[in-house]
């Protein structure tokens, strides 16, 4: 498989993840067509969530790469050892200049200024290296250094996710949870906040309006000031989806969104997912155990077992695949 084309948002190429001796994900090729709903199914321990976490930037893969939004975002790091050396180049040059000045009998103030500039440069480089702004990453790519994207980089690139075991900010209100989700799309820096600039205040107001819209979109009304942990279980699931939507993602990863829900709530959530695709033009990747949900809304289904992809296709194709039946029910059932 080569470069990603217009029709796909995400492409996984021979992705492998090893934990010690265990191969959790083994050489998986995978694409997600734009504006489709793709499901990832498989028995427990098949490597679904691991694969999910690789896509979300939480684990670095042992081998293979993931392309998202037109560029390779996730792969094993390449020449990463070079990066700290690059940090040192500029400060080292400054230090050498200072030392040369010192030995050639320059006045003390000049040496002091030289030292000062060196230290400040070192710090600036260090902070840049830690923060890794986009221009810095582009510079690294040009130098042939590759570092896998971190979760927050993937969010900036347009990926939103929910967790299998709900991970809301339990002691923040529903509204605050959604506002945190907007973090990557807001621009106000800490200096804007200190000075309370008009731009900062405007942004804050419009963020709240948008957050309220999102809460209503997922069906949460009048719970803005309710603590996340006080919400009923089904509402927590929906709030997590609202939070993931807040970063305006192009690809939404949902990890078992209907786990622990009753049939009615499951039905409502299924409707919501198809509505998200239709109204917001989202692409959705889903891990799910409830076969009624999977077969009902998926365009394509991929089946994993023991870290390997054993089947892929439309829901009907997958349902009839003998390998899938074997994986779920055991060999004698075939």
């Amino acid at each position, binding site marked *: 498989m080569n470069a990603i084309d217009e029709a796909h948002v995400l492409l996984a190429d021979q992705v492998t993840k090893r934990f010690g001796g265990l191969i959790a994900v083994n050489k998986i090729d995978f694409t997600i067509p734009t504006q489709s709903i793709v499901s990832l199914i498989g028995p427990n321990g098949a490597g679904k969530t691991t694969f999910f976490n690789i896509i979300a930037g939480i684990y670095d893969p042992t081998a293979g790469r993931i392309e998202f939004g037109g560029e390779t975002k996730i792969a094993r790091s390449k020449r990463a050892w070079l990066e700290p050396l690059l940090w040192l180049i500029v400060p080292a040059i400054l230090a050498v200049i200072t030392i040369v000045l010192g030995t050639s009998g320059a006045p003390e103030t000049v040496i002091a200024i030289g030292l000062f500039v060196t230290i400040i440069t070192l*710090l600036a480089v260090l902070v840049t290296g830690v923060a890794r702004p986009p221009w810095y990453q582009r510079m690294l790519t040009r130098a042939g250094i590759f570092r896998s994207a971190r979760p927050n980089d993937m969010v900036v690139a347009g990926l939103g996710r929910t967790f299998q075991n709900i991970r809301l900010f339990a*002691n923040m209100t529903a509204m605050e949870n959604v506002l*945190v989700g907007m*973090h990557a799309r807001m621009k106000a820096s800490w200096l804007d906040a200190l000075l309370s600039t008009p731009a900062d205040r405007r942004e804050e107001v419009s963020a709240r309006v948008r957050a309220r819209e999102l809460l209503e979109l997922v069906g949460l009304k009048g719970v803005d000031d309710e603590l996340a942990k006080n919400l009923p279980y089904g509402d927590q699931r929906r709030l997590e989806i609202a939070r993931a939507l807040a970063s305006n993602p192009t690809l939404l990863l949902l990890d078992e969104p209907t786990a622990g829900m009753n049939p009615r709530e499951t039905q409502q959530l299924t409707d919501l997912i198809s509505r998200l695709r239709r109204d917001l033009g989202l692409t959705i990747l889903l891990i799910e155990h409830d076969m009624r949900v999977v077969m009902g809304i998926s365009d394509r289904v991929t089946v994993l077992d023991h870290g390997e992809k054993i089947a892929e296709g439309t829901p009907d194709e997958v349902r009839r695949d003998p390998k899938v039946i074997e994986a779920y029910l055991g060999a004698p059932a075939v």
Partner: protein
Amino acid sequence: MSAGQRALRPRFERVRAGRSRIRDLSEQHRSATIFIGMLIVTLLMIYLPKYPPFNGILREQSWFDAFANAGVYVLLAMGLNVVVGLAGLLDLGYAAFFAIGAYTYAYSNSPYSGLDLPFLPMLVIGAAVAAVFGIALGAPTLRLRGDYLAIMTLGFGEIVPIVFLNLENWTQGTNGIGGIFRPEELPGIGRFGALTPFAYFILMAGIVTIAMVFLYRLQDSRVGRAWNAIREDELAAAANGINTVTTKLLAFALGATTAGLAGVFSASKLTIVSPDQFYFTVSFTVLAMVILGGMGNIWGVAAGAFVVFMIQTVALKQLNTIKEGFHLQPLDLGPIHWDLAKIDFTSYQFLLYGVALVAMMLLRPEGLFPSQRRRRELHIADEMLADHLVDEAPVVIDEAAVASSLGETPGADETFDGTTRGDEPGGDR
């Protein structure tokens, strides 16, 4: 509900409505509220020492001196609160940044270095230098979590005073740098002097007010929310687009900045800096103040620091005076000989901290003046109970849900938005 309770209800409601209106107003005009509040507090501090019983305890100028010294700890506590209370990073070496600010001022304004730089710019520079060290320490280490970060900050807090102690050629070791010049006279508040601490006090009130305005603004901003999210769940925060490393670094640097500011002020007031002013006891004292005051609540932490400092410097001495008034006889019980007259309450300071912390954790773990958030975290059980008592929602049996859970398909007219929270059958917590 009895008839008496029923009659009381409207008044409670009115009081409650009034309080919530005031709260809304103060939240909408937060900076103005802080200015007015601090103005009232400052005026009280100026006028109360003139009247009994306060004028009997200390002379007026001594009160101002104590207030100014308390201000240093108020600043320190508010700065540490950003790191510990807002971002949830346990920093046990906070005094290091205090030391760096103080030594920066000592270098810029003392016979030892021969420099005499203006005070107000030095406040900013001292804070900036401390921030630089905060970043230098934080950048490589803030990937650590919880206990590991605490141990590392503990190490840093030990290193800094020891470095100042052992670099004798530059810092005069144990003797410290003395004879630091006092700030030049500022218009309107008079001279800064050992006998005229009023100027220090007013300046400190100004600094605390500005710091408080800034910190409240940060807390309510995008950055403040990000800190909170990191404190709650770092992985989820990262998965929601927060750059956890830079956000934590910012908290660390801002905490260091505040400590640097306090350091400059403290050095200019004491006119001497020496390593023993910055040992672990200072970090511990400030942390205890933050915990006692109410971690996460900015004004609570400030008030807590003020109260603790005043108890430690004024109340304990006062206890000594009261005790002397009793002319206690030595207690002689055979082998036990206890000279009550010789008890010095001021030396029991850390014992009191210990007792206060233990008692606080058992009785009121959220602190004296907790933030709403902390209280909700720690007392959720009571609150949920109260909620249930207030709005006993009628139980609605949802026929569609029952039907669907029995295997039938849900009703076709059912819409997603058509449900309200009250009738969620799956709403178990």
